[in-house]
């Protein structure tokens, strides 16, 4: 993995309040007390509400079950709806776990590292990625918050890339690490869905930093937080890798 030469544009101190708010993943905090106490009674009898772990544990267990249901509902052949260019949302909304002025510049000598269960671990330069066959899409990006927008991306289908590097396609997870401190992971079936791409372009122009330069994941069959920007490494693995939001309590599968 290429290490980070550039000092991050944002120090931890700057984003700490935001992080601290999010770190508190106690599902009950600020919750309607009626719902909370009824919840403890019905979902779990005899749990200790003072730690919240009982109800959180039950909710997490059900989210795991939901993930299995989501995986079962998923079909690699089912395509996300595509739209005409006239449907593209403008202006396109910026979204990240930090504000737009904190977007990181692309590190000098950027390369994409490839790790884990792959035959060929040579890193990829931008020109090498641009030389691979490309594919475009105009699809709806759906945020877990509920809003959505239609955008246009093009790049290398992830399935073709994984085959090219000799990835073990029977592995369970593909993990994405970003140079802005973000990370996420997806299941192999979704990675191989034909609309899952390593995007190089947004609206037919090379990605600008706020849209994830120089390379981002674009996966229209998952909620927006799975389409990680500013990639620096891809790892194929059988060990559950989690991710930035997944570790804070969003459900892992997050399919749409």
């Amino acid at each position, binding site marked *: 993995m290429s290490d980070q030469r550039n000092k991050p544009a944002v120090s931890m101190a700057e984003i700490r309040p935001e992080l601290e708010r999010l770190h508190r*993943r106690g599902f009950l905090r*600020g919750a309607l007390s009626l719902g909370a106490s009824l919840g403890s009674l019905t979902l779990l009898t005899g749990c200790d509400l003072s730690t919240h772990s009982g109800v959180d544990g039950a909710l*997490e267990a*059900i989210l795991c079950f939901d993930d299995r249901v989501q995986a079962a509902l998923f079909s690699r052949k089912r395509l996300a709806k595509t739209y005409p260019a006239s449907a593209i949302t403008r202006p396109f909304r910026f979204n990240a776990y930090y504000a737009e002025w904190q977007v990181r510049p692309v590190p000098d000598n950027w390369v994409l590292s490839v790790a884990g269960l792959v035959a060929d671990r040579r890193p990829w330069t931008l020109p090498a990625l641009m030389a691979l066959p490309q594919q475009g899409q105009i699809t709806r990006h759906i945020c877990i*918050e509920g809003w959505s927008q239609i955008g246009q991306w093009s790049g290398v289908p992830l399935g073709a890339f994984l085959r090219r590097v000799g990835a073990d396609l029977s592995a369970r997870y593909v993990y994405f690490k970003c140079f802005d401190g973000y990370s996420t992971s997806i299941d192999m079936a979704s990675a191989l869905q034909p609309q899952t791409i390593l995007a190089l372009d947004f609206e037919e122009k090379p990605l600008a930093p706020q849209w994830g330069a120089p390379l981002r994941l674009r996966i229209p069959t998952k909620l927006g937080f799975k389409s990680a920007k500013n990639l620096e490494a891809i790892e194929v693995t059988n060990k559950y890798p989690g991710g930035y939001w997944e570790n804070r*309590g969003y459900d892992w599968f997050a399919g*749409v």
Partner: protein
Amino acid sequence: MGQRETSRRLTHSSAIRVMHWIGVYAMGCMIFSGWEIYNASPSLHFLFPAWTGLGGWLGGALAWHLSAMWLLFADGIAYLVYGFASGHFRRDLKPPRPAELGQDLGAALRFRLKHHMGHYNAVQRVLYAGVIIAVILQVMTGLAIWKPVQLGWLAGLFGGYPIARGIHLAIMFGIVAFVLVHVALVMVHPRTLKSMIVTVPQRSRKADERPA
């Protein structure tokens, strides 16, 4: 509907009572977690008060929403199967004739509509059937915005993801409006609350026959 034919039944079977209260709990979880989800990205120009939200933050609210939905499914399917199989729907929720509905609605608006234990008047029948249909539609729009790609046909049925999301919010308001009216009427007739909790034979019907 002849009252004679129903006069030996209990006001509510124990199955209905159990399913009713499970439904209340599941619906409470869905509504209050739904408000928290709404607050994460409000599509209208208001927020629900933060203390009413269930889950503490968006991730927690979604965990509640996507957990309680299984309880709602199970309870709803059990209720529908029971309602059709036992004849409860056919017997008690028969759609009223327009004239009957007009008459009862007029009486209700003048606060003259009588409440009979164990027998629903035309206004009640329309409201109860209406909320059952609303909950079914709410589950359908919920599934549509949960899986707008995998269940693309369902999202398409509701006009696509953004419109389905709007309908999901609108039906929530409808359900909340029903609950407010329903609870207000129960407060006017406290005996009906008792009959939804414990076994109340039809005999006590007379005592409740006073204008609302």
